[in-house]
Each structure stands twice: as C-alpha cells, then as structure tokens.
C-alpha cells in the first residue's frame, strides 16, 4: 500500500450525526439519556405500537436552529419523511428523517487554519436502537441471534452533511474537532465520539492531481475517534490508489473500519439497499421556525470558536494559527483581560499556549496573570522562573510577586551575572575556544554552568547574549 501525495489527491466529505441534548426523544416523552438498563427508556411510540403517533419535540428544533445558524446555514421550512427499511433497530420498519426539505441548508465551517468547508445541509431524524450480535464472536455475519435495546431509538439526531471540500486526513480531523467545539459551544451536543453521541461517516475518493472530476467514493462507517478517522482515510485512499494503479476501478460501496487490523472491509451490500421509498411523513406537520424564532436564536448564540480566534489574533497581533489551542482551552477571555491590564500580548498568548494546559487555568485572576507577564518582560523574572510562578499561581491562586519572593526569585544584578560568566570562561579555556569557533553545542555547557552557579536564577537569554558579547 502506498500513497504518493505528489501524484494523488484525497477528497473527503463527512457526514456527522450528533445526538441533541434534549431531555426527551424526538417524537415522544421517553427520556433521552445515555446508558441505563436496556429497554427502560421506552414508550408506545418508541416501540412502534399500533395507534401511537409522533409529536415533535420543540427543544430539538430549537437546538437544530442553533446549530444551523452557528454553521451559517439558512434555516428553512422543512418536511419530515419516512425512510423505509427493514431492520430490527427500529420497530416501526421506517425511520422518520428529513429528505428533500431539511431544516438547515447551505452553510460553512471555518477551520483553525482558516480553510472554509462547505456544509450542504443539516436535517433532523430519529436515532435507532442498539443491536448486540450474539454468537460467532460478536461478528454480524456469523451471529446466532441479536439482542435489541430500544433506549436509543427515537433519540433526536442532527445529521450534518459536509461538502467534499476536505483534502487530507488532517483536514478531516480538524473539521470534526471544530464541529464538535461548535456543537458544544451552542449547547446542542456533549460531543462525545467515544460514547457515540457524535458519529462520523466519511466519504473518501481519490483523483490524480490536476483532475477536476471527483473519483468514485466509498463510504466508511464505524469511525469512533479522531485518530481512527485519520487512519481510516489514509488506509482507504491508499487502497483506492492501488486499485486504480493496478488497472482496476473503485466500486461505490459502504465499508467498515476495523480498528484492530487498521483496514476497511466491504460490507455485504444488500440488493437495492439504497431504495428507501422516501415519502412525506403523514403523521407530522411541516416545521417552519420563521424569522422571529431564527432571529431570537441568532441573538442568543455565544461567540463561536472561529470568531474568538479572529478576535484574539486581531487584538494581540499573534497569527491566527497560533491562537487555536488557546481558544480551544477557553483561555482567550483570560488573555484579552490580561492584555487589558497592560500585559505584553505576545508573551501572554505564549504562556497560555505552552504553560497553561491545566484545566484550572481559566480561573486565573487576569490582573495576576498580567502582573506575572509584566514581571517577566520587565526582567524581574526569567522565562523559566515565570513558568514556575505561573504553575504555582494556577495551583494556589496566589499573586505572582509573593510567589516569586517566597521562591527567592529575584532579578540578578547584571554586574553579578557578568562576573560569573567571566569566571566560567577563565576556568574553561578549551571550551571557550570551541564556543568561539562556532561550536553551538557548547553553549549549553556555559548556560548550564551559570545556572548552577546562580541556583537557576539567571536568565538563560541574558547569559546567551553575554556570551555572544564576550566572543566579540
């Protein structure tokens, strides 16, 4: 298996299903909750009992509108449809979904690297029950029988269909991560890939670089983490290139990702499996949130990750690609507040990026954080000392000046530092010779020596600068 990235291009489009954070199911009052004893979140509608009728959960629509607006979609009049298929995970023998008129159409999502990915649509539908295959080692084709739990059947899902705008496994991972941040930010989903509250199907095709037509795609299911998403795409793209280079052609099919062997496998395709005989659901009326509802939701939306990245970048002058992690950690407000207190923007963001991975970092007092940055930029603390003090601040909530004093971090007198450096040079003439001849590796010897002599109080940068000055 090989993949020559200079000769071939990967084209990926993702369909992400997210369970919506409602209290009850999409069309009935059975509870929507992960886990629980099997078949305890059930009611007549969930089981498709005769005479039961669906009534739409208003909150599911509210959340769908939020997501739609967050993804820059048009929220429109929509119609539910029956998707007919025979499988025991839905007792009615059809799934209520949306077909030609989804609630959200034509949007976009901006990735941290600035790339904008098109969103084709997002539609509401009900989730299915969970089947466990018993016997044959749990493999579906060899199972003796299956057990079905309907707790999940009828849970509201929003299926978000992205356009085939992604060009690498890396892009695809960034897209899912960004979509997850947005879903969590608007309160629509808990974004848990591992628990299956977010599920990703990926459509992969390949084409020779320069080609404008899309190749034949395969749909990959069973991708349960960002890591397996990347692996599955890379495996599948290489498989398709091998086929084409061997003179064969890619068949459009659904394939199953196997995490254990790191391959995709073809699923037995059922005859006419794609003919779902969709028709408008006669038991439900149209949904049309209308301008008033849409504008109310729009006004209440929180600031979204892409806008927060742009704001942080613009207000600090730090490039967009460097602020993504800071926003992901939710530390952008802290940084902006610290900058408001006079802290150097670049150092502030750098600390948030490298030294504030602790979950409690968000509770830092912005004035304290600003004071710390200012102590460092003013030369009162070295970079290493600042890092130590910052960690302690997160731990205890203390003020930087007191922590620095308690640790005995005081700015070194520049004369004292010069004396130590000169002493070290005099004591090690051979090493100094090598330094002067441009042996970069020996720098650490001198910096380390100074640190040892000063008990770590010296500023590494100042030492390096002094060495350079002495070399002349």
């Amino acid at each position, binding site marked *: 298996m090989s993949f020559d990235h200079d000769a071939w291009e990967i084209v990926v489009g993702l369909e992400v299903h997210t369970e919506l954070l409602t209290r*009850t199911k999409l069309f009935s009052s059975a509870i929507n909750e992960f886990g629980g004893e099997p078949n305890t979140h059930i009611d007549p509608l969930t089981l498709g009992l005769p005479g039961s009728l669906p009534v739409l959960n208003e909150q599911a629509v509210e959340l769908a509108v939020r997501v739609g607006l967050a993804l820059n979609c048009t929220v429109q009049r929509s119609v539910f449809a029956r998707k007919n298929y025979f499988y025991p995970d839905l007792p009615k023998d059809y799934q209520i979904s949306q077909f030609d008129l989804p609630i959200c159409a034509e949007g976009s999502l901006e990735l941290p690297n600035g790339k904008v990915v098109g969103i084709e649509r997002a539609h509401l539908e009900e989730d299915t029950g969970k089947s466990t295959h018993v016997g044959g080692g749990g493999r579906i084709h060899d199972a003796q029988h299956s057990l079905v739990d309907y707790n999940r059947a009828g849970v509201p899902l929003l299926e978000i269909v992205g356009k085939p705008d992604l060009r690498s496994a890396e892009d695809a991972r960034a897209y899912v991560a960004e979509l997850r941040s947005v879903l969590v930010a608007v309160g629509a989903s808990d974004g848990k890939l591992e628990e299956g509250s977010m599920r990703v199907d990926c459509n992969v095709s390949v084409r020779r670089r320069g080609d404008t037509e899309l190749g034949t795609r395969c749909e990959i299911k069973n991708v349960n983490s960002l890591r397996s998403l990347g692996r599955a795409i890379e495996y599948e793209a290489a498989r398709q290139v091998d086929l084409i280079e061997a003179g064969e052609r890619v068949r459009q099919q659904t394939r199953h990702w196997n995490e254990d062997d790191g391959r995709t496998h073809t699923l037995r395709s059922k005859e006419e499996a794609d003919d779902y005989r969709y028709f408008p659901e006669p038991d439900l009326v149209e949904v049309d949130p209308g301008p008033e509802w849409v504008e109310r939701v729009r006004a209440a939306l929180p600031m979204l990750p892409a806008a927060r990245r742009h704001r942080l970048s613009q207000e600090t002058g730090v490039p967009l690609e460097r602020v993504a992690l800071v926003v992901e950690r939710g530390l952008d407000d802290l940084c902006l507040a610290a900058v408001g207190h006079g802290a150097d923007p670049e150092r502030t963001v750098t600390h948030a990026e490298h030294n504030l991975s602790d979950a409690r970092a968000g509770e830092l007092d912005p004035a304290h954080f600003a004071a710390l940055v200012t102590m460092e930029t003013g030369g009162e603390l070295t970079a290493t000392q600042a890092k130590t003090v910052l960690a302690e601040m997160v731990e205890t909530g203390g003020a930087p000046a007191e922590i620095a004093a308690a640790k005995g971090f005081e700015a070194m007198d520049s004369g004292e530092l010069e004396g130590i450096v000169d002493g070290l040079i005099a004591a090690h003439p051979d090493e100094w010779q090598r330094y002067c001849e441009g042996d970069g590796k020996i720098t650490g010897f001198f910096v380390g020596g100074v640190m040892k002599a000063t008990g770590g109080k010296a500023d590494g940068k100042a030492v390096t600068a002094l060495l350079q000055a002495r070399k002349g």
Partner: protein
Amino acid sequence: MAERITTDDVAKVAHLARLALTPDELETFTGQLAEILEHAEDIAALDLAAVEPMARPVPLVNVFRADEPGEPLDRDEVLACAPVAEDGQFRVPPVLGEAP
C-alpha cells in the same frame, strides 16, 4: 402522459415492501395502480403553476410538544409480549448486513 406502470415496477415495489405477490395478484394490482396513477394524470393536466405544493391536505405548521419526560412503559410487561426476550432485551433472528 407518463409511461404506464408495468408488472415489473409493481414487483419491485412489492419486493421493497417485503410483500409476496402471486402472479395473479401482480396483474390485479398493476391494473389498479395504473388506474390510480391515471387519475393523478388528470390533475397534472391542470395549470397549477401558481399553486404551492402541499405535503398534506391540512395547512398546519409547527405542532410541538414540550421537552418534558413522561412515564415509561414497564419493561417486563413489554418483554412479555415479545416472541423471545433475553437479558432485558428483545431477541431477534440473526440479521444479515448492516443497518443502512
């Protein structure tokens, strides 16, 4: 006038709906469906350019329920109605293929 529905079309739809039709039934239903579709053709003959398509006859939109939990069904009672139950779950024959 659209093409008349054939026995092949009806056989395909019957298969998708998992209906087993005898050759006689296939003939009968093909004839009946053709009549229904011809009736729809009468409507297609009208000029409806100014009429909005409707998904259903009653002009209702936005019928909702509040997101409030109700009483669940009793599991044991429900499973007692199932042909076979096991471990609190419905036991079904082995399934071929994956859910779509």
